[in-house]
């Protein structure tokens, strides 16, 4: 699913970050671990096509991301990746349903109401279809964000620090929910986190070295 080889990245004016070679097979959820500043977010964004300009080779589903044009990358991102962030980043002016349908709209995929129904039911959000984002609890908002990441049937769900702000009980709940949901949709989950609690939970762990 994801293959990273001889990859490094350098921010303008920063030192070069070298990433370890690794492979995350389809269906095996993985975690990118490392201290703050080790480049987890950078690597996750490189894999997700949110950031360009790396050296080396990052392959997703057999496609070398560097070979895509900007427009091609936009499309690829929309159709193959779902993103989850520490904050939910739902679009506050839209309803829950509109937030979900925004994903297929921007990915230029058909907008299917049944999928909205199914996802809301699956994540226990049946009554919230027309709710405004501000009316949701934090947990509900996070589940909407998960639903949004899943709705396009993306092969890969990339999550950046989804649990860092949570206590142990909630951390466990959220990561289980994420894993269950991605598994049931046939997607592969990759989490970037400094949260060592996740190390034992996800099958593949990639440790990033600190860069100074």
């Amino acid at each position, binding site marked *: 699913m994801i293959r990273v080889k001889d990859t490094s990245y350098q921010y303008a004016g920063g030192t070069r970050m070298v990433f370890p070679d690794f492979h995350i097979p389809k269906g095996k959820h993985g975690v990118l671990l490392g201290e703050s500043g080790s480049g987890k977010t950078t690597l996750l964004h490189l894999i997700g096509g949110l*950031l360009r300009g790396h050296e080396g080779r990052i392959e997703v589903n057999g496609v070398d991301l560097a070979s895509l044009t900007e427009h091609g990358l936009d499309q690829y*991102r*929309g159709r193959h990746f779902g*993103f989850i962030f520490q904050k939910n*980043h739902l*679009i506050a*002016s839209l309803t829950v349903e509109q937030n979900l349908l*925004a994903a297929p709209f921007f990915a230029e995929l058909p907008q299917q109401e049944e999928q909205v129904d199914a996802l809301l039911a699956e994540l226990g959000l049946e009554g919230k279809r027309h709710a405004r984002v501000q009316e949701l609890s934090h947990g509900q908002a996070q589940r909407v964000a998960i639903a949004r990441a899943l709705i396009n049937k993306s092969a890969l769900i990339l999550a*950046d620090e989804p649990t860092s702000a949570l206590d142990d009980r909630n951390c466990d709940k959220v990561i289980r929910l994420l894993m269950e949901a991605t598994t049931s949709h046939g997607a592969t989950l990759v989490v970037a986190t400094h949260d060592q609690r996740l190390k034992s939970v996800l099958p593949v762990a990639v440790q990033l070295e600190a860069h100074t």
Partner: protein
Amino acid sequence: MNLIILAWSYLKSRPLTTVLNVVLLALGTGVITLLILFGNQLEEKITANAKGVDLVVGAKGSPMQLILCSVFHIDFPTGNINLKEAERIARHPLVKKAIPMALGDSYRGFRIVGTRRDYAELYAAELAEGKWWEQHLEVAIGATVARQLGLKLGDEFVSAHGLAEDGHDHEAHHYKVVGIVKPGGTVLDNLILTNVQSIWLAHDLEVGPAGNAAPSNLVPGHLAGDSSREVTSLLVQYRNPLAVIQLPRFINQQSSMQAAAPAYETARLFSILGVGADVLRGFALVLILVSGLSIFLVLYNSMKERRYDLAIMRSMGAGRGKLFTAVVLEGTFLTALGTVSGLALGHAVVWIFAATVPQAAASGIQGGVWYVAETWVLGGSLVLGVICSLVPALQAYKTDIHTVLAGN
């Protein structure tokens, strides 16, 4: 989900600023619409009413007043002119046609005009009912007169001296309605037409048949050269372009009368009114510019609040172009909303004005007409909307997904 829903949701998410911007723009475009509606209709009415009248000859005084009184029937007469002298003008070789006007009386606020039938022909007026006047004291009334006073064929009335509703009555003579003129959108709609002799009769002056004496070229049925009779003015048509220069000069220098050209006086009137209109237009443009600036600021500021939204949209596959379009759409939406409200407001004000102010109704001004210039207002505001949203849209275009989303 589509870009329109998205743009609309953002407008709805800040109702106060949206309403403020819409109101601001609506006021600006509303005033412009008002000016367009009034200006155009006024000009149309004025041209329609002055049509076919090259020169007005009347007693000395203000030329503007003479025109306003004899052509538009809004001001008071400058005085009267001697029939014999008027006949001399009518005989002048440069005059193709001269129509006498005897003014000064009215019935319940509507003016009675003693004239000839070719006065009605100037406006190609047709009768809706009855016939044109034949005998003295027979009148044909305008459509508005008939409607507002409820006058029917065969009704009789006495005229009042003066043009206000409370002048003293000429009780001895009764006018009789014999014809009702079809509405034509000109001054005729508000006039009561009769022959010149009727006005003289109402003032207890004798009118006799011409007998064997030569008949007057101005007042059919009256003897020529009667210097004891007067009319208010003459509407003159030129025989040829030479008359434009020679005739007014001849009249103004060689007679006790004055000549005034409606074309010149109305142009003067427009330039006087134009100053006021320019001030208003300038004010409206300032309003529109301020609202444009305000729309720009609102969008510009909301781009900062919206950077996560924008980055998330891009993470979902939206290209830069789509975000650009979404913001431009939002700005255009806002201006379209404001402009359409403004146009509606302008029309509504004119409509209410026409419905409540009798003078406006009498002048035939309407709220339900559409002018090409309004399309320009609409088009211009949409362009303004696009321009005001360009910079914010560019910000959206340049959203760096990584920096925004890594910064959490």
